[in-house]
């Protein structure tokens, strides 16, 4: 059984804003019955561009119904510009979180909203942009790229949880892996410019101070940076850490992991006895 939050259950059992909206002037329809979920979002936008009313119809599981209902609550009273900024994460957050396998329900909500706002602006409901990657669920490369970028997805399973892509015959898994590598690669380039030695040492010091020391001190230990030679980071342990037979494991697992995450994946941590 799914581990839904009380809010998801409440919005499923007593959905807000369900049903047709006769005076709607913006309608977005996404999904299909074949895919297992579909959503129709109807908005009434006034002359000032404020969403006065929102209603939904959903075919899908409890979390799809709750996501649609949450979305209508989120956008009612907002301007079109404000609504455009709402992400799938906002929908999930509003519900107190969704099981990871159900995140695609929040993505469906965002897609329905985008379709409705495009309809309001008189933009043609365009053909899906990009190339279909997942034939089973009709998901394009651009949709996958966007989900990877906005939710920092790292594995094929995560992409499936968020977009459904790859959840059928699995023949597109290799392509999805390539997309993840490409998008995550972009991130690495912008986040991690090549470090000069001085910058590197400074960054290591900061990381130790901010990310590593507090958790070691909690256990009565500490760590000092002794030297940095190329990619070798020499450290000395103090207090409980120095006495602990497991100190090498602590160092390897904690210090190195944090330095890899925040400084560079090439660093190797070594302990120096003083």
């Amino acid at each position: 059984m799914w581990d839904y939050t009380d809010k998801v259950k409440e919005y499923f059992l007593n959905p807000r804003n369900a049903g047709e909206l006769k005076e709607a002037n913006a309608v977005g329809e996404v999904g299909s019955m074949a895919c297992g979920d579909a959503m129709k979002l109807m908005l009434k936008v006034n002359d000032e561009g404020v969403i006065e009313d929102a209603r939904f119809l959903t075919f899908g599981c409890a979390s799809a119904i709750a996501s649609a209902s949450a979305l209508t609550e989120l956008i009612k009273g907002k301007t079109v510009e404000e609504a455009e900024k709402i992400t799938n994460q906002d929908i999930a957050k509003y519900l107190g979180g969704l099981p990871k396998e159900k995140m695609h329900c929040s993505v469906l909500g965002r897609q329905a909203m985008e379709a409705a706002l495009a309809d309001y602006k008189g933009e043609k409901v365009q053909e899906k942009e990009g190339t279909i990657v997942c034939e089973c669920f009709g998901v394009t490369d651009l949709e996958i790229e966007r989900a990877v970028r906005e939710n920092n997805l790292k594995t094929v399973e995560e992409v499936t949880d968020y977009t459904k892509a790859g959840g059928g015959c699995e023949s597109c898994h290799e392509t999805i892996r390539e997309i993840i590598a490409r998008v995550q690669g972009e991130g690495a380039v912008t986040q991690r410019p090549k470090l000069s030695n001085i910058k590197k040492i400074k960054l290591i010091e900061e990381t130790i101070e901010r990310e590593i020391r507090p958790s070691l001190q909690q256990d009565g230990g500490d760590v000092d940076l002794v030297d940095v030679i190329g990619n070798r980071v020499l450290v000395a342990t103090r207090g409980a850490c120095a006495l602990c037979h497991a100190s090498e494991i602590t160092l390897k697992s904690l210090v190195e992991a944090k330095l890899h995450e925040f400084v560079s994946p090439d660093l190797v941590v070594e302990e120096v006895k003083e």
Partner: protein
Amino acid sequence: MKTIYMDNNATTRVAPEVLEAMMPYFGEFYGNPSSAHTFGGQVGHKIREAREKVAAFLGAHPDEIIFTSCGSESDNTAILSALQTQEGKRHIVTSRVEHPAIKVLCSHLAKRGVRVTEIPVDREGRLDMERYEESLTEDTAIVSLMWANNETGVLFPVEEAARMAKERGILFHTDAVQAAGKIPIDLDRSAIDMLSISGHKLHAPKGVGILYVRKGTPYAPFLIGGHQEHGRRGGTENTASIIGLGRACELAKDHMAKENTRVRALRDRLEQEILTRVPRTRVNGAGAERLPNTSNISFEFVEGEAILLLMDEFGICASSGSACTSGSLQPSHVLRAMGVPFTMAHGSIRFSLSIYNTEDEVNFVVEKVPAIIEKLRSLSPFRKTEEVACAREV
């Protein structure tokens, strides 16, 4: 809130008589049945009795019964044994609608070079016997076909299929987990070589299963270790559960009559009432021979998980073949193999009854279900248009 349990193909209630038989072996009689002393030996004696009861229930000889930990272990043991004892043969014949214990094992073996043929079924879930016959080759090590389908209750003609395999010198295994206790099994008059049963599907506890292996069938153990089960399955016996399973098999003879009269009548009424009261509904596998306790009903325009959760609010327990229930994104492989349209497969609910269900419970369910479906249909965007969008069929 009262629980109305109609999910008996998932698991069943332990019969009070079974629980009673088991209790002393959790407490006072904790001896190891293999021990040389009287204290352990008396437990060994009870296990021998249980084996005799199981054998009598199946029309088998006690030596042909191996106790395992579950249906999946029995299934795995049968297939792997057939491959290990016939190294020259590298082909398995099975069906497209098997339980994962067979299906996933076979796809695992396929990656290691074993050729697997999955026989298709028709729209009612019946096995394509022509394709089956064609698929049997000199290279076929084993045929494994389920006796009754866990999702639809549809029965395969396993006796006939077993005879066809035997004529060609091919081993035949059947996963009888859902069939046992609901339809008669008499292995003495059968061509079946191996048969798997799970305790908790017939009012015994979880964690115990049976593998029947006909005398003279080549066999290699799966769990290697102790001398237990005559070296055919290592590991100290799950004594209390085995004794419970023996008692459950004794009771099953009596239960079976009820299953085929009273339970069948309850199931038929549940089905008819729902079909009458809820439009755009169908029973999957209705045209085939089925178990007396199972009804797999599809409700168009709504999704199964949502139905289950609303039924749960009334204490009604059932299960669904929808994608959302399983955690995968595709609806049930069984319904897809039968060519049930996606529009129907996503909204499928399986009710599976037992001898413990009552007339009142059926009345309650048929009263609640129409309102639940109506509520979800009122939320569904497909309802008004009545269009059957993208009814892709597999």
